[in-house]
């Protein structure tokens, strides 16, 4: 549907790209990145609000790189919503229909459909849009963006100013819009939970470049670069060397500890790599509890050094007995209550091979310290 090829532009000192992205029909792509990574600039360039320096934007195989924004048939929901304060709710919603010269009957039908879908019946007669609540404004702005019947919708952090409950309701509405109306969505956000909840595909954008793109699981569990791993809050990163490439392409890794981890193309014995595991993927076992054979691999004795309580989970800061290496283990509150760990308790941890990721390392940075600094 929309294809972005080698797109680059600049705004002041900031350079975007070159970026390649492909969004299929009716799909949902989230672009996840920290503030200042160029997400909005990317959208503005695709929409024709900023001129590209290089590259092309294709919409259904038509080159739209140099055509005016109003001819691109892309709808846009910006972070601040940009409702028109001099127009009432209904005129705001119908603005696109009026200026795209939509048939009256069609726009009335779409209006009614959207009023149903977004629960807007009680708001449609409101005169002053500035008196709407945050969630109401979001729904009106979304209806305004959808009424012209776009095939592509660009969202720029639309829920960043909302409280958690309203945000979740609107996220579910967006999923309905994507699935029921068949609108393809390109959604940029810095909110990891939102990106993984909504995006069928997730692209990680850091410093103006797309660093990795893939399915939710690929991005979450198999980061391809250390930047991506760190941005996605991978706390447990180990600096290791490949000791052996096993017949099943797994790697035997060593440093202060030995690990068996998944392999990757081009892995050679003696190469330095980063291995990591998400804190919620670590299995913890009581010291004397019998365990099945599947947990014997990468099994270590450890001690609880600290316990940090968050809203819905706890993080156990543990130290491996054999080398004093620190690990963070995330446990849901219910599990924590059942297990009842306290500081100083002994336990066993299993870093299952299938939960580990590995990345070749070329620079000489201290991986362990940088990763643990993220949490503490």
């Amino acid at each position, binding site marked *: 549907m929309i294809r972005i090829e080698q797109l680059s532009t600049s705004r002041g000192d900031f350079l975007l790209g070159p970026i390649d992205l492909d969004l299929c029909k009716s799909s949902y792509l989230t672009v996840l990145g920290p503030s200042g990574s160029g997400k909005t600039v990317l959208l*503005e360039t695709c*929409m024709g*609000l900023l001129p590209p320096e290089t590259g092309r934007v294709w919409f259904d195989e038509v080159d739209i790189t140099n055509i*005016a*924004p*109003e001819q*691109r048939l*892309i*709808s*846009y929901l*910006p972070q*601040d919503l*940009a409702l*028109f*304060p*001099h127009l009432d709710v209904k005129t705001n919603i119908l*603005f*696109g229909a*009026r*200026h*795209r*010269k939509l048939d009256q009957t069609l726009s009335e039908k779409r209006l009614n459909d959207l009023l149903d879908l977004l629960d807007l019946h009680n708001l449609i007669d409101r005169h002053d849009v500035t008196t709407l609540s945050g969630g109401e404004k979001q729904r009106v702005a979304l209806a*305004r*963006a959808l009424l*012209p019947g776009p095939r592509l919708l660009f969202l720029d952090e639309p829920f960043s100013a909302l409280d958690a409950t309203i945000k979740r309701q609107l996220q579910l509405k967006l999923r309905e819009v994507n699935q029921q109306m068949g609108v393809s969505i390109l959604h940029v956000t810095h909110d990891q939970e939102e990106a993984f909840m909504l995006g069928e595909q997730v692209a990680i954008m850091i410093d103006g470049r797309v660093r990795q793109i893939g399915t939710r699981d690929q991005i979450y569990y198999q980061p391809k670069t250390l930047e991506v791993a760190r941005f996605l809050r991978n706390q447990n990163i180990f600096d290791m060397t490949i000791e052996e490439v096993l017949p099943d392409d797994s790697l035997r890794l060593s440093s202060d500890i030995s690990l068996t981890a998944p392999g990757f193309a081009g892995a050679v014995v003696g190469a330095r790599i980063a291995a990591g595991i998400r804190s919620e993927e670590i299995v913890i076992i009581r010291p004397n509890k019998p365990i099945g054979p599947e947990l014997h691999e990468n099994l270590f004795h450890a001690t609880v050094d600290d316990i940090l309580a968050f809203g819905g989970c706890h993080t156990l800061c543990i130290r491996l007995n054999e080398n004093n290496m620190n690990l963070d283990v995330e446990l849901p509150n219910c599990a924590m209550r059942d297990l009842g760990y306290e500081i100083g308790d002994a336990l066993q941890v299993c870093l299952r091979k299938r939960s580990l990721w590995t990345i070749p390392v070329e620079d000489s940075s201290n991986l362990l310290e940088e990763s643990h600094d993220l949490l503490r």
Partner: protein
Amino acid sequence: MPRDTAFKLTMLLPLVVLTAYFLLLVCSQSAFFSLPEFIRQLGHANIHSAITLSLIAATASTLIAIILAIPSAYALARFDFPGKRLVDTLIDLPMVLTPIALGTLILMSWNTAVGRVLSDFGLTLPFTLAGVILAQFTVVVTISVRMLKTSFEQIDLRQEQVARLLGCTAFGSFRHITLPLARRGILAAIILTWARAIGEFGATVMVAGTAKGQTATLPSSIYLAMSVADLPRAVTLVVILISLSLLVLFGVRKILEKT
């Protein structure tokens, strides 16, 4: 608390002095003002022509200034272009130049090739309405540009961009979003520009002179009356000018309160 009171008094005292000073200026007219004389003066042809000329010239110069200032101010508020800072500074020139000097510059410009071409087309300045309008326009256009630029800058660019993506052309977005959102700023700019134009004296006298019934506006008629010690006429003209100015200032305040 005593410290708060001292602070309030420090701030309020200069305000009281200023208010007293301006009241003194306005009320000092009353010593020379008599209603029968005022009514008698109002029937005088020269006062009629001064009022008419002032109203026509101020309205025309305001209209021209606003028509040129709206796009210029928008361009300054929204676009980046080479020499923008220079243009911005140049437009501010009438703010810092005394109107007399500005009038001199206008007269000199009429001796350039451009001025001569315009003269050949019949656009002469001395002792003409065109001269009065051009002098007023030159002085007031900066006010319009400055006020409108601020007004456009306060409008969220994102609203214009969203309108474009909803099907508006750049002109459509300007017409349907920018202008309605800037309407109060535009109205305030029109009123203040008009108020400044009707009170303009220095540049008008330099460019168009003070021919009675031809180019003598309200301010230049006051000057003429005072120069021949015709106090009743001067007072009448001042009262008219003060009334018009106060009316305009109250109008602006009302508009700004609604913003």
